[in-house]
């Protein structure tokens, strides 16, 4: 039965929302803290948003000359969870999904698109991929070996801090 509540009476929309919220609270689901944080960590490590935009023209030129452009068909696995980390990529066109395998189910934890760097957390010796990266459509990316990326960072040591700052600012807007 439809019911009208005037703001002049005892209730209003906020009271209605409060009552609804209270009813729902009784059925609030339980989540797994370890899983939530491990997904968040994998999403953080999956790559740096806006990497390309923090590079100056010279740095971009150096990156392009040390990398090769590749095109990936939709559904291609660019990086596989648990695999040895041999490359980093900068996405130039298209979007990718960062996914975790949770008991055989794919869980999308992040998306990465134009300008984003993926795979940098695997550049430490012996590191393996903490998540898979899959092309959501056709993707064009600059692909560089991890040793090539290490050399690039050695030549441009200010880049990681700029990327970190940009990523942090984007992801932690408020509060």
């Amino acid at each position: 039965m439809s019911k009208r509540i005037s703001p002049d009476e005892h209730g209003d929309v906020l009271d209605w929302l409060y009552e609804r919220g209270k009813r729902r609270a009784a059925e609030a689901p339980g989540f797994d803290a370890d899983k939530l944080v491990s997904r968040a960590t994998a999403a953080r490590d999956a790559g740096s948003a806006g990497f390309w935009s923090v590079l100056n023209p010279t740095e971009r030129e150096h990156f392009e000359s040390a990398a090769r452009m590749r095109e990936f068909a939709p559904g291609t696995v660019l990086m596989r969870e648990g695999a040895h980390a041999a490359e980093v990529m900068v996405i130039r066109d298209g979007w990718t999904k960062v996914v975790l395998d949770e008991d055989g189910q794919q869980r999308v934890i992040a998306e990465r698109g134009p300008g984003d760097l993926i795979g940098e957390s695997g550049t430490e010796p012996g590191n393996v991929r903490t998540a898979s990266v899959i092309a959501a459509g056709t993707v064009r990316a600059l692909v560089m070996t991890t040793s090539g990326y290490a050399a690039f960072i050695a030549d441009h040591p200010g880049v990681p801090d700029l990327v970190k700052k940009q990523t942090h600012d984007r992801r932690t807007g408020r509060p």
Partner: protein
Amino acid sequence: MPQEPYRDPVSLVRSVLGDLSRAAYGLLGHYADAEDAVQNGCCKLVMAWPRVAALATAGEQRAYLIRIVVNEALQILRDPYRRWEKLGADASGRAVLESSFEDEIQAKDDLRRVWMAISDMPDMRRDAVLLRAAGYEYRDIAARLGIKVSTVRSHISDARKQLSRTLPRGWEGAHQ
């Protein structure tokens, strides 16, 4: 005596997880959406951990995370393409919508305007209103946000006035 700050994100999330899921589900009423809101909040927490770790007390850290999660829930509520925001539906979606189709559409539109108006409120008022809308009592909101109960009352009172201007003809479409 204030509790020492948490030293890692998992301990913080674990300590406040009951509130996170309750607040997110109270606002969203949908398991996957609530999980997304909590997950996105955790992603932001991990990104901001160096800053959160430096907060003076555990209470401040908990408040920070709760505020992130209710704001993530608000982002989902504001999404015009969100399909499952059905007025009158209870937590499990059992309730029957008995009004006419036009009333339902109008009420849905009104509710979206309410979420937009809440989005435009100053930070602390918005957070207090979101916890209220999630079904929290004033004293619980005060405890979660680390503010006085009188401050919560004042925020909610101001919010009521603001929302009554958003829906000047009153609130129609609540199906109880």
